């Protein structure tokens, strides 16, 4: 298992490397640059700006510069933690030197900030919302799917699936404003917008206000709006998969040898039925993280989602690269977790 995980991580580096190359090529192939704007700038000004960000260099050189900044540790005399040219990892060495590693570069549209800043301040908010939304999705979706399957073709089944279909067909962009209007404006129970935690975060993403109502009251509506949509997918998949498993021979065998219905369902049926569900949970989590654009906009949450869109419309190259690589990273990581969960759910699956 350990070897397998190491292997997967090595593969991850290759995958990220290839993705970075493709992204780099594609974003430079799109017409228009970061400094193309409605109030046309004089060419000399654009030249100054491009020089500042090395955009006047040939593409191969720009790419190598980027990879160098991100991947290669640099030893430097000054700490420069407060300068824009900063690194995610900075270790102080003897002799007044600093080892600095991982610099995702500046943001063109916000001069005093960097892509590292966005990772430190916006990404954690998205992770918080993403995790809570996933918890909501699973707590609603899983029981709903199980009930529907066990009570197939009864009123419970129809009810459960109606809820699921409602969840699927009610996009956040519609559900968000409705929730805001009911609970935020009319009843005034919850704050209509905003987020109850701000940087710095403990352990990269845990909000310091986790224990306070202030954090949760900002979280309820957006997490519910995102969660219900995904819960519907989980419910439908759980139901379909459980229905299939229930009719397998080994379930009949289990019943035949006199196991209680509860044991049959939990230990034999549900455990096997969860494999396809777990499979989609991985990419779903990565998808939730990056798909938060709409919900973050609707609820005014300072997360990362918006940067996937605005970085591209602004041609903010380092932010595009950073956002895409981050997404790829989460996708790969969550797939590794999925694989590990497989082995736990189904002892026949082994990676050695």
């Amino acid at each position, binding site marked *: 298992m350990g070897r397998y995980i190491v292997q997967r991580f090595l593969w991850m580096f290759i995958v990220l490397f290839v993705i970075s190359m493709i992204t780099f090529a594609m974003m430079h192939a799109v*017409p*228009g640059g970061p*400094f*193309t*704007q*409605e*109030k*046309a*700038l*004089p060419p*000399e*000004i654009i030249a*100054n*700006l491009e*020089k*500042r960000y090395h955009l006047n260099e040939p593409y191969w050189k720009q790419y190598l510069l980027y990879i160098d900044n991100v991947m290669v540790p640099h030893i430097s005399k000054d700490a420069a933690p*407060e*300068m*824009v040219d900063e690194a995610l990892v900075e270790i102080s060495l003897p002799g007044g030197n600093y080892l600095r590693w991982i610099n995702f570069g500046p943001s063109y549209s*916000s*001069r*005093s*900030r960097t892509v590292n800043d966005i990772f430190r301040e*916006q990404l954690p908010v998205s992770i918080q919302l993403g995790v809570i939304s996933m918890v909501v999705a699973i*707590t609603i979706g899983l*029981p709903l799917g*199980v*009930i529907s399957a*066990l*009570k197939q073709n009864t009123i*419970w089944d129809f009810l459960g699936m109606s809820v699921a279909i409602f969840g699927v067909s009610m996009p956040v962009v519609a559900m968000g*404003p409705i929730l*805001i*209007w009911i609970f*935020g*404006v009319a009843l*005034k129970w919850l*704050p*209509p*917008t*905003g987020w109850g935690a*701000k*940087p710095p975060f403990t352990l990269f993403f845990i909000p310091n206000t986790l*224990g*306070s*109502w*202030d954090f*949760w009251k900002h979280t*309820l509506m957006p997490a519910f709006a995102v969660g219900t949509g995904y819960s519907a997918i989980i419910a439908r998949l759980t139901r379909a998969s459980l229905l299939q498993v229930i009719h397998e021979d080994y379930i009949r065998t289990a019943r035949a040898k006199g196991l209680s*219905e*509860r044991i049959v369902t939990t230990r034999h049926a549900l455990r096997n039925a969860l494999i396809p569900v777990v499979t989609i949970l991985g990419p779903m989590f990565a998808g939730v993280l990056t798909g938060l654009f709409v919900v973050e*906009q*609707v*609820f*005014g949450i*300072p*997360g990362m989602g*918006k940067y996937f869109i605005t970085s591209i*419309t602004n*041609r903010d190259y380092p932010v595009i690269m950073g956002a895409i690589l981050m997404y790829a990273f989460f996708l790969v990581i969550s797939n590794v977790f999925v694989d590990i969960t497989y082995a736990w759910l189904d002892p026949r699956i082994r990676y050695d």
Partner: protein
Amino acid sequence: MYSKKWTIVLGALLAVSMLLSACATPTPEEIIIEVTKIVEGETVVEQVVVTATPEPAAAEMRDNVLHVSFGPGDVPTLDPSLGTDTSSIQVVEELTIGLVRLHEETLAVDPGMAVSWDLSDDGQTYTFHLLEGIPWVRWNGNSVEEVLDADGNVRYVTAHDFEYGTKRTVDPDTGSSYAYVLGMALAGVEEYLYAENWNDLTDEEKAALRDGVGIKALDDYTLEMTFLTKAAYNLNIAGMWVARAEPQWLIEEKGDRWSEPGFSQSYGPYALKEWVHDSVMTIVVNPFWPGIESVPQPIIEEIQFSMLDQSAAFAEYEAGNLEVAAVPSADIDRVKADPMLSEELIIAPDGCAYYYGFNTEKAPVDNVHMRRALSYAVDRTDLVENVTKGGQQPAQWFCRPGMAGCPYIDPHPGFGITSNADEAKAELALHVAAVGYTDDSEISEVQLMHNTSEGHKKIAEAIAEMWHETLGIQPTVTNQEWKVYLKTIRSEDVPTVWRLGWCLDYPDANNFTREVFSKGGSGNPEVGGLNWLNEDFEQIVLDAAVESDPVKRVEMYAEAENILVYEDAAVLPIYWYTMVNVTKPYVNRTYSNHGHDYYEKWSLELEK
């Protein structure tokens, strides 16, 4: 039976999980809610007392805090040299004061950091006498404090800071997008800003170019600025955010990060307190700002800017958490019908214009009659009333009335181009005759292009329909993603008709008529755009810039606009923007005509 058990177990599970999420509620809810509002640590103690002894009917008071909203997305910068957008500039206007300050209602040039100024005989050199004893301040985590130098003395804002700030803006290494505005006005800037082979120059050569810039501190409180020409708008430019005092010591230490919270130093009526990126920014009153006539001491303690989408902001307004909000276009009808909200609604002019440009080299709009026909055929009133619905003002020319030098609507109701179906048909007939078509159907195709956006699409479709109805011309409407679009309309492939907008940098006709449409301007670049050059127009806007008689200036710009929208009809003006805002009745505010609010003049009625 078994399955019944299951439902119970699952139901219980569900209930427990719901309870758990709800249980995160600590019992004394109110304490925490209040604490987040007040922020400081010590207030917690106060809250406990409040809950223990319920105080009897003292009048409920509001916090002396104003909550307003910027659009979605982070404020790009608080660096005066780098600001290009409304939100950045709005905050910069409250953190720093220019040499002069434009009155937000009359647009008159009031003294700012300069108490007075002298003008040289040739009208090109201003000598500003600065306000003395204004300290640099910063937020230290608890309060606003004066900035001290290494010896412990208070740092005061001096002419040297203004010289440094301005020169930093036009330093090629700074890469300021707005430096070109100074380049067009201030002496010696273009030589420095656009210096050839900048990287190969020696330090001495760079210093020499830097010294050539027409701004010089004669002593601590006397500043001299030399302009290229004697122009009416020179003072406006001296007051712009790109020419502010900047803290050299701080910028040299912190680099681009200097304007971040924790570091930021300023001297205006407010100081930066907190900036949670992408979320909320708070500025707090600067007690060291003495207050002058044009910039009094602020009454409102704190201003909180939320970065919210329009509909989110409007929901917050309706929930009572924002004092001012823009009304999303989808809600305008509802707000107008609502008895309470309609009282709070104000539709005020905004310094922006929306227009279509013609590629004057491309058939069929290479003929002026065709262009006029298309322009006459657009029913602008119908468009703003039924399509855009934001109370926009139909535009008959480009320059926004209300800006210095721009023509006014009242004395000239028929001036420029109006909407007139008969005239449109007559011009079309002239066009057909002039080109020698035998039939209308021979007119080559009109392509109308806009950048991808729901709003622009609605307008384009409405205008296409008007052209079709009045002239029988059915244009093809296409769109492109924003930056691709900008590239297209500034290239050889510019379509027959394209759309753009313009918002003011400083409220003067020069910023509109000349900077946009004289050759090389934003809407009339060397390649693409209008593909238009009219020597008379160029001469008039050049002369108008230096004309000192305001009445004469208006006449000159009127003449230029007439060429632009009627005689040559190179541009099809559509409407002037408005701001559709709601303000809570307990806010006493001013309305700004130049796009930035001066919050130091606002106040709140604190008693509920």
